């Protein structure tokens, strides 16, 4: 399992495609032909990551603000989500925040 730190930068993997319907993303990992449906929080993280990437800390700040949860809860959600989507190769670690 890839270790994710608060300063890790996450971005959508290059070989993915997605569509958001009714606030939920369906993500295709193209080379594996695997599909994943994200919940609303996961979809927001996915959108924020984009192609350029955001740090885990930035994502947690954004989630805490938008979903009105404390930052520790938001950070835990981002870390769990990141590890799951890195594992299925929907996200990849970037070199720096571009957003």
């Amino acid at each position: 399992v890839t270790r994710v730190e608060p300063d890790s930068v996450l971005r959508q993997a290059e070989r993915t495609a997605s569509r958001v319907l009714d606030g939920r993303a369906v993500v295709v990992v193209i080379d594996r032909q695997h599909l994943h449906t994200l919940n609303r929080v996961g979809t927001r993280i996915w959108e924020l990551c984009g192609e350029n990437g955001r740090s885990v800390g930035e994502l947690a700040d954004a989630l805490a603000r938008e979903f009105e949860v404390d930052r520790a809860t938001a950070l835990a959600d981002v870390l769990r989500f990141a590890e799951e989507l890195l594992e299925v190769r929907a996200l990849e670690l970037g070199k720096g925040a571009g957003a």
Partner: protein
Amino acid sequence: LRAEPGISVPEELPRGVDLAAPGLVFGGVSFEFLGDARRHDWSIPPNVLECVESPGATPSVAHVLCSLHHDASLDADADPHVCWQWCEGGATVRTSGVRCTLRNVGAGRYAASARLARGPEAAGAIVRALSHTILHREGGFALHASGVELDGRAVLFIGPGGAGKSTATLHVPGARFFADDQVVLYPAPEGRGGFWVSLMPARVSRRDGASASATLPVAGILRVDRGTARVGIRTVEGPEAFFLVRESVRHGSPGEEEAVLDRVAHLIHEVPVGVVTTVLGEALTATLSGWLPGSRR
């Protein structure tokens, strides 16, 4: 191409280099060929022939005029994969015994020039390859699905291998068998709304004289879910419908993915999608008719 019995063709085909052969419709595309079909044994193989219809018998989303030339260097070519690449208004198409260039010459109109190996396999291969390449440009895509015809429209069953797609076609008494494995879907010709579906060749076909025609409008798409208690259909929309349909799309080249997602989004906007619970021995007909919009039953 020379058609096999069952397709309307003249008794004696004239001989010549640019033979005007009768047209045919396959996979939503109408074909017209120029070439010396008889000399090179370009007859249509049976598994492709059962997916062919006569021009005028069914609507088509595009028309292609294709000149055929025998190329002896391709007679031993045996790579069955279809490779194609669109670049602006033109494409190159390559498959077993076939090398072809294709141009879009107007709305829904194409011209092609092909070099072919000798024999029926090459004849079947070019029909399949050109229809696939053209359909991609016209908004179509291939789907793993079985299906039946109910009231003149197709009900398609999708799901992973072993889900019960083929078995579901046996649970609809009163419906005609349509497809067992592979189909192509495309927006209705002439902007009429909705989607149409055409049969693709199967390795082992269950079709017979009582089966539905090879092209039908699509009434609905159902993900098969085997159950034990009672038959039922649950309508799904949004991300669930999108997921279930995309999961059953036959993927082609990786570069197609964005286009495929757009087409699936278009499809679920036009065609109802649901999850059907099937129970061995229980007929689906009444449940299907109640679920389909505009059913006459």
